[in-house]
């Protein structure tokens, strides 16, 4: 009897304020779409880091024939300097951070260079002697770049220590800015959602004052009186969350997987599976919104 009764009360309440209910659904839908987009952007960054950081190396470029760098003032790198650099990498306080060290000779560098730029007119002038020899270091933890940089930077014979991760920084910067924008919009929309749910519950409580008055009179518990209103808000918000999940799923499926994925295939993208990962989180946010709004409103409008 109780459950059936509460459900019928919720139905009556939702129908009575249909336009308000729809606006709650839509506002939660839009706000949670932004929340979800922000989460997916971060997951996208994570996916790229996972995939790329495994491949990136720290390159220690040794001095070529004629370099302007002060550390290369002594001309091309000598065998002693090379050995000293290698010894520094093998030192016990650095070694644990290093997975593998590979020496790329000038000839190897030239081969790779030719392969990459064979169609460029300016590449024809370049010879193997213009190339840098280098140490290619794979770190066991790609974030510990600074350890290698500290040891080798400024050393005679070392032109430059380059962290390939730097190449992604500008891309990640764009994605992080987009996340911030998304979070900002989400915050504004969530505020709007809370206010709207508050107003809806208030209207609903006002239009059912007669019922709640009698409930209080005959000794219904506070929870019993307030539950239909809370569930109304929660139901509308959850519906909005459902729409948001659906919208994000469609976006990922058609925009990311089908369109971006087929045109730029070398980037690892978020998938619809990631959407399902954030879906429960969005629903929890929606229910949280409704709960906060209910608590604020109901304590004022339906107290004993």
């Amino acid at each position, binding site marked *: *009897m*109780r459950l059936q*009764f509460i459900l019928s009360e919720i139905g009556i309440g939702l129908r009575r304020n249909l336009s308000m209910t729809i606006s709650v659904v839509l506002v939660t839908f839009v706000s949670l779409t932004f929340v979800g987009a922000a989460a997916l952007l971060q997951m996208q960054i994570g996916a790229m880091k996972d995939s790329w950081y495994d491949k990136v190396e720290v390159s220690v470029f040794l001095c070529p024939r004629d370099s302007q760098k002060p550390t290369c003032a002594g001309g091309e790198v000598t065998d002693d300097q090379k050995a000293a650099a290698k010894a520094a990498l093998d030192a016990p306080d650095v070694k644990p951070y290093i997975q593998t060290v590979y020496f790329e000779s000038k000839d190897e560098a030239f081969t790779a260079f030719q392969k990459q730029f064979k169609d460029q007119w300016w590449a024809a002038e370049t010879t193997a002697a213009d190339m840098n020899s280098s140490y290619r270091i794979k770190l066991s933890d790609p974030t510990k770049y600074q350890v290698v940089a500290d040891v080798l930077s400024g050393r005679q014979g070392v032109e430059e220590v380059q962290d390939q991760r730097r190449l992604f920084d500008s891309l990640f910067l764009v994605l992080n800015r987009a996340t911030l924008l998304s979070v900002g919009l989400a915050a504004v929309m969530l505020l709007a959602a809370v206010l709207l749910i508050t107003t809806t519950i208030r209207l609903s409580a006002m239009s059912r004052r*007669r*019922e709640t*008055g*009698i*409930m*209080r*009179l*005959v*000794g*219904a*518990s*506070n929870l*019993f*009186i307030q539950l239909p209103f809370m569930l109304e808000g929660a139901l509308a918000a959850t519906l909005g969350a459902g729409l948001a999940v659906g919208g994000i799923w469609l976006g990922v499926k058609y925009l990311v997987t089908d369109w971006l994925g087929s045109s730029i295939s070398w980037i690892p993208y978020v998938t619809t599976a990631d959407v399902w990962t954030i879906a429960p989180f969005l629903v929890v946010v929606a229910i949280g919104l409704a709960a906060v709004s209910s608590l604020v409103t109901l304590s004022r409008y339906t107290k*004993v």
Partner: protein
Amino acid sequence: MCLIPCPRDWPRAVIRFENVTKVYARGARPALDQVSLEVERGEFVFLVGASGSGKSTFLRLVLREERPSAGKVFVAGKDLTTLSSWKVPHLRRQIGAVFQDFRLLPNKTVFENVAFALQVIGKPRHHILTTVPDTLEMVGLAGKEKRRPHELSGGEQQRVAIARAFVNRPSILLADEPTGNLDPTTSLGIMRLLDRINRTGTTVVMATHDDEIVDQMRKRVIELSSGELVRDQSRGVYGSAR
């Protein structure tokens, strides 16, 4: 009213006011001023007095819709001044209340209106299906279960309200001018019903302006005037001058 000898500490009074004063926030004059009285189990009490004399405040204090500004209110053995608010619903389940304006739900049938009082306190379905028809028959509305309030006369609507107040078999029934909107003949019917409910052992407290009814019934009369208790008379009449 005990069927076996009452225990010595058994509270005979179901309602007890001890020097109760109620001042509403902005009112200069107290709505109730140092009122002390007891209503015993099974009594029928008329609460009389002019409008604004404090009758409704008295009833609201019993229902704990208000708290006294000073003094103590005991209802059904509980001190309402210290009763925590989450226990208030349980208190109200022991009190039925009827009003001048009936307060029925217009979109529910007679049956649903009475059943509502049981549904919202979580009574099981089978209990509702047996108790509600019994109560409707008792108040004389058998056969009108499917009507809506607007299809009923004023007297019948008040009977629905009484059924709703009594369906959970409360130990106290409060009635705030229940005959205020009814003609004398209909009022008499309502009074017979309240009397019948009183005979089941339910304490009835009725606030009223209706002198004919008070004079006819010859029950205990408590008169309030400007918030003060001016008369408490068993088997009394409406006006003290008569």
